[in-house]
């Protein structure tokens, strides 16, 4: 390839980087000032693009296009302010995870809002009036609009830089980023500052989206795609650092452009198509950066670790009534096949719920007691499911050994990725686990020879006596209950206490001789083992596996289940997974807008009862006990 071609691809990368930077800059600002990890930030970008499309197509002409971009950005900024005042403002003192859950709920609601307003079809905007053609550079034609974008990115960075360094607003932003208490001490109206920052961030995302109008169709999947990319950029650059975000956006866009430019290469006689690497390039970059520089390229370690709201109550072993209740519930579940002879679907749904429960419990094991907020837990579920499916269909192993391979695979994956991830904390840990999960997903997705590629693997059915619906349900019940008991026993054991010790106070834990890294690493591995086991059940329940089970969406579903149930209750993941799975099955059959319904329910829970469902039940119980004479 010629040098000109390479340089030219560099220009393409720069054009691509601009929007990425604008969206990521907003995310970074909001995190810096409010410490909120805003999952709905990608939705602002998506809405900006949709709004610009509507304005450009309905008004038409240069005014509709350029004016539309401005209006769209401002409108999205206004929406951001409204959401901040209406919802997020109530959550600044809530634990980080509930803020996360509520921004996830906002994401769900905004997605269905877009579906309602614009319908489900992709909408590509018109070409930019005045910039619809191309200019010739290096003997090649380069779209003039892309030149405009290349300039827009640094201009926005410059404007932001001036605001942050020169204005009073900017000084407050910096002060809040470095020390939140100080802002309160300065007598600043903190609420107003937060609203303003949130609106600015939303407007930046909206602008980034609107500017894509002639380049990219507005689609309903943009929000999740963009939020993933924006997180990658923000984290690679260092949370809270605007120049870092700019640098990271360019780095990632250029690496992708380079992969596309190189295309087919031959390494040691193996033909590789690097253009396929763009599927996962940014996540590989993020993983490498976080391993080498745990706080990103230009990031600094957090000044002080934030207290996560009210800490949980001490663990109490179950009393006799609780044990009796558990046995009774178990007996009912075991008898379900008898009761459900007339409606076999009950067993099918119940089996799916059991699998979700085991998966959620394994995630809760590290999220709650160890405080390790993994955003990529589906990877271990997927590894387990694939290991089982491969063992059955390719190696011809019988069911028993195939099921044992799954926890091994899940555990091995968790051992490898956990070794890097557990060293980090907070957002950085979440993002590194996410990156690893995406890498696992892309391997499952592309290794046609072993994993069947995007289609997956078929024909992993259970053997007798588990081949009937009732038989498999009972197997799933047995495995899940055994898994839950094992996890529970571990939580009450010295090891489980050491997990919490390492979460409560790493300083104290180390000072009494507890190796926090070793304990949390092993916890991560155990979580991978049980997620893998749940994956094995999944493979046999469906008879097939495909890459979706290791996707971001699956990981996010797991998070939602745990948070819905309540992260500080051992029953939380059980209740959360059951409610989530049942709701999605039932509600999705009756309305197109079931995600918005789910988001609404989550918001209600978070605003009214920020301890999740089980937190609410616990509070109710305490209230009743107090009320008793």
């Amino acid at each position, binding site marked *: 390839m010629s040098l000109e*071609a390479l340089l*030219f*691809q560099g220009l*393409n990368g720069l*054009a*691509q980087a601009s929007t990425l930077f604008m969206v990521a800059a907003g995310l970074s600002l909001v995190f810096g000032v409010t410490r909120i990890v805003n999952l709905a930030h990608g939705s602002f970008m998506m809405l900006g693009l949709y709004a610009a499309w509507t304005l450009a197509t309905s008004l038409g002409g240069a005014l509709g296009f350029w004016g539309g971009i401005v209006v769209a950005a401002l409108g999205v900024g206004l929406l951001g302010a409204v959401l901040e005042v209406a919802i997020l403002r109530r959550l600044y003192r809530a634990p980080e995870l509930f803020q996360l859950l509520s921004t996830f709920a906002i994401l769900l609601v905004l997605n269905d809002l877009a579906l309602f307003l614009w319908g*489900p*079809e*992709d909408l*590509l905007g018109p*070409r930019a009036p005045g910039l*619809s053609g*191309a200019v010739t550079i290096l003997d*090649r*034609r*380069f*779209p003039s609009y*892309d030149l405009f974008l290349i300039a827009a990115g640094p201009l926005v960075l410059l404007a932001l830089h001036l605001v942050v360094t020169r204005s009073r607003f900017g000084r407050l932003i910096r002060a809040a980023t470095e020390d939140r208490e100080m802002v309160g001490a300065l007598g600043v109206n903190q609420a107003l500052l937060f609203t303003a920052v949130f609106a600015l961030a939303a407007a930046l995302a909206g602008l980034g989206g609107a500017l894509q109008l002639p*380049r*990219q*169709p507005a689609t309903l*999947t943009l929000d999740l*795609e963009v939020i993933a990319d924006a997180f990658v950029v923000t984290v690679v650059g260092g949370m809270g650092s605007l120049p870092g975000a700019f640098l990271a956006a360019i780095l990632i866009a250029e690496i*992708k*452009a380079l992969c*596309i*430019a190189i*295309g*087919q290469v031959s390494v040691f006689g193996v033909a590789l*198509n690097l*253009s396929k690497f763009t*599927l996962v390039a940014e996540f590989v970059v993020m993983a490498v950066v976080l391993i080498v520089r745990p706080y990103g390229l230009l990031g600094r370690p957090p000044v002080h670790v934030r207290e996560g709201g009210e800490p949980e109550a001490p663990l109490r072993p179950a009393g006799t009534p609780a044990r009796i209740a558990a046995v009774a519930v178990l007996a009912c579940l075991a008898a379900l096949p008898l009761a459900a002879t*007339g*409606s*076999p*679907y009950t067993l*099918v*749904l119940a089996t799916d719920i059991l699998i979700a429960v085991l998966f959620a419990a394994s995630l809760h094991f590290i999220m709650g007691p160890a405080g390790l907020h993994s955003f990529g837990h589906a990877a271990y579920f997927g590894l387990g499911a694939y290991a089982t499916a491969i063992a059955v269909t390719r190696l011809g192993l019988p069911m028993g050994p195939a099921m044992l391979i799954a926890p091994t695979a899940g555990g091995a994956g968790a051992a490898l990725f956990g070794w890097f991830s557990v060293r980090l904390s907070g957002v950085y840990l979440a993002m590194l686990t996410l990156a690893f999960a995406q890498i696992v997903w892309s391997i499952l*997705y592309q290794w*046609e020879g072993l994993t069947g590629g*995007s*289609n997956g693997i*078929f024909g992993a*059915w259970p053997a007798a006596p588990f081949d009937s619906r009732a038989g498999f349900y009972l197997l799933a019940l047995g495995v899940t209950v055994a898994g839950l008991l094992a996890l529970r026993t571990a939580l009450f054991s010295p090891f489980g206490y050491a997990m919490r010790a390492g979460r409560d106070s790493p300083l104290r834990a180390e000072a009494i001789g507890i190796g926090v890294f070793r304990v949390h690493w092993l916890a991560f591995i155990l979580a991978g083992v049980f997620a893998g086991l749940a994956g094995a059940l*999944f493979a046999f*329940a*469906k*008879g*097939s596996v*495909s*890459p*979706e*089970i290791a996707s971001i*969406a699956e990981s996010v579903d797991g998070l939602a289940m745990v948070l819905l149930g309540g992260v500080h209750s051992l029953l939380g993941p059980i209740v959360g997974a059951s409610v989530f799975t049942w709701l999605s*099955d039932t509600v*999705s*059959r*009756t*309305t*197109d807008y079931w995600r918005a319904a789910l988001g609404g329910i989550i918001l209600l829970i978070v605003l009214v009862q920020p301890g999740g469902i089980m937190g609410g039940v616990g509070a109710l119980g305490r209230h009743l006990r107090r009320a008793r004479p």
Partner: protein
Amino acid sequence: MNARFARVAAAAALAGTLGIGAASAQDTITIGELNSYKAIPAFLEPYQKGMELAVAEVNEAGGVLGRELRIVTRDDGANPGDAVRAAEELVTREGADVIAGTFLSNIGLAVSEYAKRRKVFFLASEPLTDKLTWDNGNRYTFRLRPSTYMQVAMLMDAAEASGAKRWALVYPNYEYGTSAAETFKQLLKERVPDAEIVTEQAPPLRGIDAGSVVQAIADSQPDGIFNALFAGDLSQFVREGQTRGLFDETAVVSLLTGEPEYLDPLGADTPTGWVVTGYPWSAIDTPEHAAFLAAYQDRFDTYPRLGSVVGYATIKSLAAGIEKAGSTDPEALVDAFEGLDVETPFGPITYRPSDHQSTMGAFVGHLDLVDGKGQMVDFRYVAGEDVLPAEDVVKALRPAD
């Protein structure tokens, strides 16, 4: 329309919950249909309309075996795991006699696997993957739409006639794209032995960096391009390619681009001269299509897309198959479908006994711009049997039942 179907589905779900479904199974035949409605609306909304039209026609003509046809639809959430559960629900709770539908290849394959396991009759209407009827084929699964292999094969005459020797390939990075590219390379080698592949670009599905991809292709200086991108990726690729002059001197053969679902959104950007597979609904001059077109426009006040034809033909196939079998027993249905002849808007088709693939074909033609809109011109219908490998060839590809 979508809302109406949702209501029907909701009512059906409610009925099923209350145990009413079982009683009504006596006088109706239930088709359990599942698809990625929310993920692929551009194709599937017209598809749903096509089904509705066919059901209405069948029932107005007295139903099948004297019983009414009833459809219960489910969204599979574009997720194979959920799709299998939806299939279970359709069969066990709704009492579906057959299942049909699916768009995405991985979901089609997962449901096909389920059908084989539970011995349920499954008519896969849309998924394109060759594996569905070949490598992973099974007794209980049939497929209506022409497969990836067939559609690529339809373009080979044009590829050869273009005289291009330096080919660039661009396709979405998943099984449909990779297998389309493989088929193209294999068939090209047979037809034009001295042709070479100068670059292969496989951007992520729904995630193309169109500028970079177009540039990389231009830099490899091809004289022919094989494209398998569709939907949003296609729109971006076409726009960037035109701005950058990629298509000016290059022959392009392109899968699916002539389908109204993907052609209409291109609007004034439509690249003229591309040779594409598709469905030129406004210019097909056959009595069977004219009748379908009139009925469809009369009922829905809009023009049909390819999805409409597929949805319509799905129901017509099922009706014909059940009529021929004389019952909804899966074994009888499979036997009836092997060699079943069905009348469709594209003319008569047959479900081949060897690989359970229908011989439904597609139209191949050039793209042109008429009144600011894309249109297929100089097209011809290529029947499925003309591009399918011989029955004994495909038999070797399928696993034994």
